[in-house]
């Protein structure tokens, strides 16, 4: 296949990729038109990443790409070559303990049907990493790229605040 070893890269319909998803390394040959969202769901069978609108509006397919929240439906699997991807499956601990963000959503009833929830959890993860103590307004602003048709958002905001508090406490304990 084409890759760095050839001097002039040629056009092709398939591409060899090696990437890390939730700590596991995968090497695959993929059609170049395969979206990252479909690669995660159909190739790796990580169906927690949901596909809603498939044009970047709903936010359900949000994953972390090298730590940054991105729409997995708006990039090709080929473009994730060499990258580190985290999906909702990578959030809970190895012995199935929920991540503090997931736990907060469960306790505060921050979901109903759950379709949008994986994308929201990944967005919140990125948000709290950058801003560990967001205001209500900042939470609503940062969540504006994730659409939820059930909850009315109130409990989502409550869940994010609870998660922020607990993650802050955890951090203090470590220190």
């Amino acid at each position, binding site marked *: 296949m084409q890759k760095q070893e050839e001097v002039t890269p040629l056009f092709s319909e398939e591409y060899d990729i090696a990437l890390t998803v939730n700590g596991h390394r995968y090497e695959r040959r993929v059609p170049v038109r395969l979206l990252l969202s479909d690669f995660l769901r159909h190739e790796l069978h990580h169906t927690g990443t949901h596909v809603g609108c498939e044009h970047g509006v709903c936010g359900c397919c949000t994953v972390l790409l090298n730590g940054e929240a991105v729409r997995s439906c708006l990039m090709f699997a080929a*473009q994730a070559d060499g990258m580190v991807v985290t999906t909702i499956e990578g959030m809970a601990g190895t012995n199935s303990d929920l991540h503090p963000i997931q736990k907060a959503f469960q306790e505060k009833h921050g979901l109903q049907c759950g379709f949008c929830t994986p994308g929201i959890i990944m*967005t919140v993860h990125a948000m709290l990493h950058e801003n560990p103590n967001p205001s209500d307004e900042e939470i609503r602003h940062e969540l504006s790229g994730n659409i939820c048709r059930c909850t009315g958002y109130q409990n989502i905001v409550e869940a994010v605040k609870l998660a922020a508090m607990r993650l802050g406490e955890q951090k203090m304990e470590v220190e």
Partner: protein
Amino acid sequence: MKPPRFYYSAPSMLDEALALLDQNSENTKVLAGGQSFVPLLNMRLASPAYIVDINHIAELHYIEQEDGYLAIGATVRQRQVERSVLVQDKHPLLAEVIKHIGHMQIRNRGTVVGSIAHADPAAELPALLTCLNGEVLVQSIHGERVIKAEEFFTGYLSTALEPGEMLTEVRFPLIASKAGWAFLEFARRSGDYAMVGASAVVTPTADDHCLSAHIAYLGIAGAPIRGLDVESTIVGTTLDETALDAAAQAASMLVSDDMSDVHATVEFRRVLTGELTKRVLKTAWERRGL
């Protein structure tokens, strides 16, 4: 839906990319952040036979201060500009405008140059470049050319780019220290496409009258549009209520008759355009240096 079939290449050198672009120039598209282009592919509104992915081209990854402008290379993501200390320090208007683009997840992938090349009349950066009358650098295997914003945006999603050419750099002119600046837009929800937006820069004279004004709009015509008539109503004034009312009146005339859609009627857009004009000019004037 899923993207149509295409042939893909991801070169790491600009020369290679330009050569590939030239091979089948009529049927090749450049992929950068993909936040507008991939939706077009997914919805099958675009179906190029060849795609050149420029994300691996390190030489296009720069934000640099040049003589009188800030230069941004084609692989710089909007989020990087948003976080850039250089941009915050040297071009606060650009830093302000960037925050209004889409959502955080979109800005994490979307590029500044890609937004200019896509030339959406409802997008923020084309309006800003029009306001500042900045320039773009366009390259092909045959050479390069520099195009002014007013000549670059030619219509709805249309630019002066020719087949085989790639937009490699956008140049945002720096704003004089005495000038005031502002950007405002109106959207129903944070991150949505705005119905109307306006960017303004005003420069005062020594006796505190308006020496010069630049204002440009998004969402009111088939392309980003500079409000020359609006500018002429306020030059020489102190931006008092009378001058702002005249500016608003002139601004509302700029809205194209065909700008009615499910989000806003043309009448509503005219009202919004007038009101945003007043507010953006007022804010810019308040920020002027004395």
